[in-house]
């Protein structure tokens, strides 16, 4: 184990972090939309949202990644493995985040919305000022959990040739014949990244004025 190995793993960590941040962020945007659809008055929209969630939650991420990796070139879209990995991670996490957010919205006490109506807030104001902040408050811990899960699950992208932490550790262990050191260091990198995520989540909670 030399510093060059640590450096290469750190490069992998940047890839892992980048993939996770991008997929969680885009996944949140999609998740909000899917959540809105699942709570919509329109029945077809609700059905679509249910199908979306049950598909991307029901198919294993590894299978989803391999499917996308092999499917995209078949339909004429030639993209690097990184893009296939991003698409797979994003679709997967968006389904989980949509479901988490939906749980937050349906668990808002109806009286809090009624109080808003009695004060004279419009439905849009009630959504922005009352329902969304309370749903976020209820779901922030679960969303941080989801971010940690995705960060760890991103190790699966090594199968589509993306040089993340896990892939780098595999390569290094076969070239150095020192798998234990390499994978132990890889594990430490994941641990460090997740501590950052958990800290960030706590900080976000404090910033939003959320309390126990």
């Amino acid at each position: 184990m030399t510093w060059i190995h640590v450096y290469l793993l750190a490069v992998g960590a940047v890839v892992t972090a980048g993939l996770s941040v991008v997929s969680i962020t885009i996944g949140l945007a999609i998740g909000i939309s899917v959540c809105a659809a699942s709570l919509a008055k329109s029945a077809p929209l609700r059905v679509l949202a249910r199908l979306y969630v049950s598909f991307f939650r029901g198919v294993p991420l590894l299978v989803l990644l391999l499917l996308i990796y092999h499917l995209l070139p078949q339909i004429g879209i030639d993209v690097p493995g990184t893009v296939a990995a991003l698409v797979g991670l994003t679709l997967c996490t968006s389904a989980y985040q949509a479901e988490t957010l939906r749980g937050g919205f349906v668990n808002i006490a109806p009286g809090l919305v009624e109080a808003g109506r009695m004060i004279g807030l419009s439905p849009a104001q009630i959504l922005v000022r009352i329902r969304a902040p309370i749903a976020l408050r209820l779901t922030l811990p679960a969303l941080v959990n989801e971010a940690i899960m995705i960060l760890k699950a991103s190790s699966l992208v090594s199968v589509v040739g993306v040089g993340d932490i896990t892939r780098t550790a595999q390569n290094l262990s076969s070239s150095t014949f020192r798998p234990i050191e390499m994978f132990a260091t890889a594990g430490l990198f994941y641990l460090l990244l997740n501590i950052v995520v958990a800290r960030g989540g706590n900080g976000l909670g404090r910033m939003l004025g959320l309390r126990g």
Partner: protein
Amino acid sequence: MTQDAAITMRNVVKRFGGNTVLRGVDLDVRHGEVTCLIGPSGSGKSTLLRCAAFLEEHDDGIIRIGGAPIGYDAAADGSRTRLPPGEIARVRRSIGMVFQQFNLWPHMTALGNVAEGLRQVLRLPKREAQDRAMAHLTRVGLAERASFYPSQLSGGQQQRVAIARALAMDPKIMLFDEPTSSLDPELTGEVLTVMRDLAAEGMTMLVVTHEIGFAAHVGQHIVFLDEGRIALEGRAGEVFRKPWHPRMAQFLQTYLDRGASVLLEG
């Protein structure tokens, strides 16, 4: 229909599925009076109050707030037409509501809760909204708790903030839905005191309550509901001294049995 009625209800019917909760209620709430809705659990008191705010949609009948129909209006042929949401919101503006569960927004401070409507609905500048919100918190004795979150306040304090929140919108009528029912007995007093002060200032109030003492002392018009109908109504003095309706007499007896008779005297 009397011209000076703050709320008039005619033949109000409400069903939940196959269960008819209100069976044709006629009620007049007069300006400047405290009307208390009393009755056994499940008699439809809270449902009637929620219909007045159109938080529950009545299945038949017409409800008017200050003369303006809320939710539904009577058409010329006797059928009902649904009013547009904007019109419902406009009529609702003259009503303030206080809930059994307080329903303060947990992500806002006491001041934030009271200022919310002033900022978002009346569009007051931040400074002015906060000043006015503070004045209302002072009115309910909670100025020094302005920066506290609901979770940091006692139940009685939360309910007083909720009253201030409703009053801040300058309603003509205040509806109270069992405002002390989820409070510990030692905390009901502070809420009832605020309500008593409000009544003394001449606020029109419709109060669903189990506090028979409050109804007897502060209430002017008493309405006894039983199985979705008004079984008995009248001036507070008469109703409590001569509860001629057998269900009312029985209802009051359960309070007297609990040693509440002292509250009814005087």
